[in-house]
């Protein structure tokens, strides 16, 4: 038994931390603000640099042109991304679409799109959530009707993460037999009505309506329910790792603040009530890390359940730690000037996507 990163994992961690230090290190809040002001809602130059380091292909197999990273590599990377308050959507626009396309990259077009993704040339995102589904990931009302060698897709998708600046959408819909499938759709295709909007974390999502959008039948990805479940489990793991990085950053910042901020002639941290709240946060973070490790190291057959459990636990823990960080910072905590508020807002988004704590807990309980 050994919870230390292996040699390659340590190298990966160093590479991600170097990216973070070079980009977000000096002024995380200002860098985040400037990056998000970009057309796609994140920094184009940062994205290009992530492509150069190969990180956009993190979860893509070597045969698909990626790094072939597994769960531990994803966890190590995303924790560092969270800790750095990085605005670039490695989870939404690299890990998830990379895994979906990789499964299916036999068709020439899909493999070209995957190459573009890994190279940082194309932004590809999953358009899956629907309003009526709430947090139920199996609920899809979108429909794909066969029409000769094409299909016509009708669907209303909401909260398409990073959808505001995407070039390609991977749209879920039910086929003629009622089976959920995934189709690669150019975001600029006729019949795609896209309304970009900002989420709490400053990212540019979109509401997307597809009214009979015609794509070749061959644009269907070879992604079945089991494969999709595995991708969602990895998305949950990545979200958990990013939340753990954010929690850790919040904790470090807050610990530093209560040691230096003085009221009533002494540091805030000398008051027992502050000490206990910081201790509670510390315990939550250690417990969260244990859940992340359980999910990252679980046998394949138990991974989905462990990832669901980790998501349920860490989503709640991260919000609690973020609320503590805001409260301990007093008035400064509620401003847009400190990283505290930005971390809280990113945690809010990560806590709800790919199943909120409640629905992830249901998945965990059902799989027992």
């Amino acid at each position: 038994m050994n919870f230390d990163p292996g040699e390659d994992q340590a190298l990966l961690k160093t590479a991600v931390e170097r990216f973070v230090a070079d980009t977000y290190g000096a002024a995380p809040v200002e860098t985040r603000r400037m990056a998000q002001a970009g057309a796609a809602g994140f920094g184009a130059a940062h994205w290009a640099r992530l492509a150069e380091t190969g990180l956009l292909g993190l979860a893509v197999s070597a045969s698909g042109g990626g790094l072939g990273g597994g769960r531990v590599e994803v966890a190590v990377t995303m924790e560092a991304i969270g800790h750095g308050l990085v605005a670039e959507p490695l989870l939404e626009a690299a890990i998830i679409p990379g895994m979906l396309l990789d499964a299916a990259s036999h068709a020439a077009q899909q493999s070209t799109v995957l190459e573009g993704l890994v190279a940082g040339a194309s932004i590809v995102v999953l358009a899956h959530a629907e309003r009526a589904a709430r947090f139920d990931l199996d609920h899809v009302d979108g429909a794909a009707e066969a029409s000769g060698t094409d299909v016509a897709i009708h669907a209303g998708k909401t909260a398409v993460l990073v959808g505001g600046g995407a070039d390609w959408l991977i749209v879920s819909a039910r086929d003629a037999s009622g089976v959920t499938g995934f189709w690669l759709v150019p975001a600029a295709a006729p019949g795609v009505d896209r309304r970009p909007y900002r989420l709490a974390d400053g990212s540019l999502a979109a509401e997307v309506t597809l009214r009979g959008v015609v794509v070749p039948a061959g644009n269907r990805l070879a992604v079945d329910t089991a494969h999709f479940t595995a991708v969602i489990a990895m998305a949950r793991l990545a979200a958990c790792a990013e939340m753990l990085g954010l929690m850790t950053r919040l904790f470090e910042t807050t610990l530093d603040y209560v040691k230096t901020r003085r009221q009533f002639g002494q540091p805030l941290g000398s008051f027992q009530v502050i000490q206990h709240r910081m201790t509670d946060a510390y315990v939550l973070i250690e417990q969260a890390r244990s859940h992340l490790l359980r999910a990252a190291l679980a046998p394949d057959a138990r991974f989905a359940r462990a990832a669901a459990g980790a998501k349920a636990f860490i989503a709640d823990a991260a919000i609690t730690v973020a609320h503590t960080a805001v409260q301990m910072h007093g008035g400064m905590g509620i401003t847009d000037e400190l990283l505290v508020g930005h971390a809280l807002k990113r945690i809010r988004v990560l806590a709800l996507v790919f199943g909120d704590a409640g629905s992830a807990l249901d998945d965990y309980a059902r799989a027992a």
Partner: protein
Amino acid sequence: MDMDFSAADIAFQAEVRAFLAAELPQRLRDGMNGTPSVFVEPDIGLEWQRILHAKGWLAYHWPVAAGGTGWTPVQRYIFEKECALADAPSLSVLGLRLVGPVIAHYGTPDQKARFLSRILTGEDLWCQGYSEPGSGSDLASLKTRAVRDGDRYIVNGSKIWTTHAHYADWMFCLARTDPDVKPQAGISFLLINMRQPGVTIRPIIGMAGDHEVNQVFLDDVEALVENRIGEEGQGWTIAKFLLENERGGSCAAPRLLADLDRLAGLAAVQPDGAGVLADDRDFSRRLARLRLEAEALETTELRILAELAQGRAPGPQTSLTKLVASSLRQHIDELTVECFGLDGLQLVTERPLYGNESPEPIGCKPAQLAMPTYLNSRAWTIFGGSNEVQKNIIAKTVLGL
């Protein structure tokens, strides 16, 4: 023992309802409901203030001699509850609830004549100069210095978390007039004209993008001695009088209960698979638990009112109600975000979110308001004395620890 209103109270309630139905414009209701920040903007608040002033109901927290209504504590409660149910805009606390009663209580006849009616008419807007960058919870350590120079003081220092300083004509300010005595004894309560050289306002933008608070720099700013309230060195006593008004004196439960009703209504139409969210057992239990807490708070507040109505001093429950109300406020606003599923994640930073120019929501309008309201609501357990400070007060003064 009973919890019923008297016949006279019920008649008063009917009068308030009739007034609100006739006189509260829909535009102001929309403005209140479309405001995600803690305070409404003057375009909404002042119009409502004028309507109430015309009716003679504006200064209901003030002594009759200063223009108050002479309402009993129960009548005040009924009025606030009906206003909450009718979505009436919240009134600016700074002039009406904070400095107004201070001037009415401690001011000279001349000060009362000069300031009180202009608060009621809305001609003067006020801001509060209490907290400083180095003095938050530990207010008595404040460093803003006022040095006497003939018939005026020269004031230097910086105030922070100054709500609506960017609209204010006047600031009521705590400043140190004597640095050589113990901290509380060297503070005076000064009224400072904001429209003068040396007053610099730096906006502080909140997590949701709202501009409510500021940092105010005072560089060789003038405060006339005739605009000092009370004696030199009496500032701390007056500050505590004012803080008690800020922390208590008004009932929070009616608005919290009204918001819980609204949330229940929203959950009843929020899609959840084939059904609606209101049928979700987990959600309905969480909502019910918050309602239980709010109902207990309502009765605790009524117990305080009953003490006041009998001419007895209210107990230390005023500290308790701030504690309960602020965390309840946060839990309601958090559950409201979750009510809207993924739509609850949208965050627009354009303002205002009411009126014809307001941005289109994703989903419904309440979904658009949920996230900024929740983010701003994190301030409730911080301002007016953080929850940690409130608990210390209860432990010390109530429990004798």
